[in-house]
């Protein structure tokens, strides 16, 4: 490759590259801000509510003593711990 070509390739890459990085991150700022605004409107206060889904939270839960009886390991695996 001729040295002039090489330089022009480098300049091209710099322009495209920085341009794209800025476009991408600007869009990400927009998407993120929009997402945050929407989410915070919808989910409203209690940010900790979604925070900790009850460890088992399967529809069958509720009788906790029983669950404690269960094969601990399988249980642990299934419940995603």
């Amino acid at each position: 490759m001729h040295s002039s070509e090489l330089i022009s390739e480098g300049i091209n890459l710099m322009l495209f590259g920085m341009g794209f990085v800025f476009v991408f991150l600007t869009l990400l700022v927009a998407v993120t801000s929009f997402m945050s605004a929407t989410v915070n409107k919808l989910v409203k206060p209690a940010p900790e509510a979604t925070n900790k889904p009850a460890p088992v939270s399967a529809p069958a839960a509720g009788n906790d003593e029983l669950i404690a009886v269960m094969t601990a390991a399988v249980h642990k695996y299934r419940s995603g711990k």
Partner: protein
Amino acid sequence: MEQLLSLWQGSGLYNMGLGQLTMIFICLLLLYLAIVKNFEPLLLVPIGFGGLLANIPEAGLALSAAEQAIHFAKPEVLAAIAQAIDVNTTDPEALKHLVHEQGPSAYAAAQAVAQDAGYTNGMLYSFYSVAIGSTIAPLLIFMGVGAMTDFGPLLANPKTLFLGAAAQFGIFATVLGAVGMSALGIMDFSVEQAAAIGIIGGADGPTSIYVASLLAPELLGAIAVASYSYMALVPLIQPPIMRALTTPEERKIQMVQLRTVSKAEKVIFPISLLILVALLLPDAAPLLGMFCFGNLMKESGVVDRLSDTAQNALINIVTIFLGLSVGSKLVADKFLALETLGIMALGIVAFGIGTASGVLMAKIMNKVTKTPVNPLIGSAGVSAVPMAARVSNKLGLEYNPHNFLLMHAMGPNVAGVIGSAVAAGVMIKYLGG
């Protein structure tokens, strides 16, 4: 007697070349820096030790079966290899290069010939093929890093993404510098090599290794060593630049307390980021995809056992093999070249320009928007998580003992990770496509 002689002639002492000796000293230096000076030891200990192993004379741990066959140069094997890759020469030096230049099928044929002749792949060569040749190791590290990353500060102040964008200027300026040096005849870098070198300025080890493995595997050793060394040196490299570009008043700017970020935002963010990548830059999908996957596992809170494994057992296993594999590229004939000096020089330039760009971007933002931004957090945009953010914080405290910048600097810090992965995607698209 014959056997004694063969033992002696097969010993390292008899076969040690000057290059290997030099490389062994360089690797010992890396180990010293890692162990005593605490230079990114997680990577530099395996890299340094891998480099020692790779330079053991005659052991050929970093060579493929074909490369070993060519090294030992039995005429009939050389002839068979030459035939397998369809070239006319049986000169070992020439074959050493030709065997890699005739495409994957020819290389596989040469490997088959060498294996039939009793040669096998060296241990480090196998590690390299599986870990880096397949690009899997840097991707898994990125997944683990994703599972360790908290995007909260970034989500609380998304504008800090601009700082992460600006700091990537270090990457592209360095690419230009590298091709410039080649144009001037000082070095001889191709555009692909220049791009791989530039990514050092991204201050992100796995990204550097990933890009280098795709665009310039022959430079991977030097690039990885430069990348991790300079990340360790961030506390020395950045402060003078940050001081030079800011006034004492700017350094004292206090930033508004970050808002609380809800769990839902944190869960949706990695998915949003992935979709943006999918729409705009598919070539960054492996890198950012695994990063977002790791982060989603962490933030979703429903697969904690997977997230824990990604952050611990898995990333540790991968780090061991990645390090040894990078070490396998620290062999004399690839590392002891003028190019390596060029890479080291360009790498530090890249860090410097990235730091400066981040700081200057913060100053511009201060002009444009009303919420104050302390320009000291701009330098964190190069990433080097979390070292660069810590540096911002430390400098901030020097000038205003009540000004804790750490959390503010974490925003640009993780933005820098995204930024350099995007830059990597652009380069792969532009040069690899």
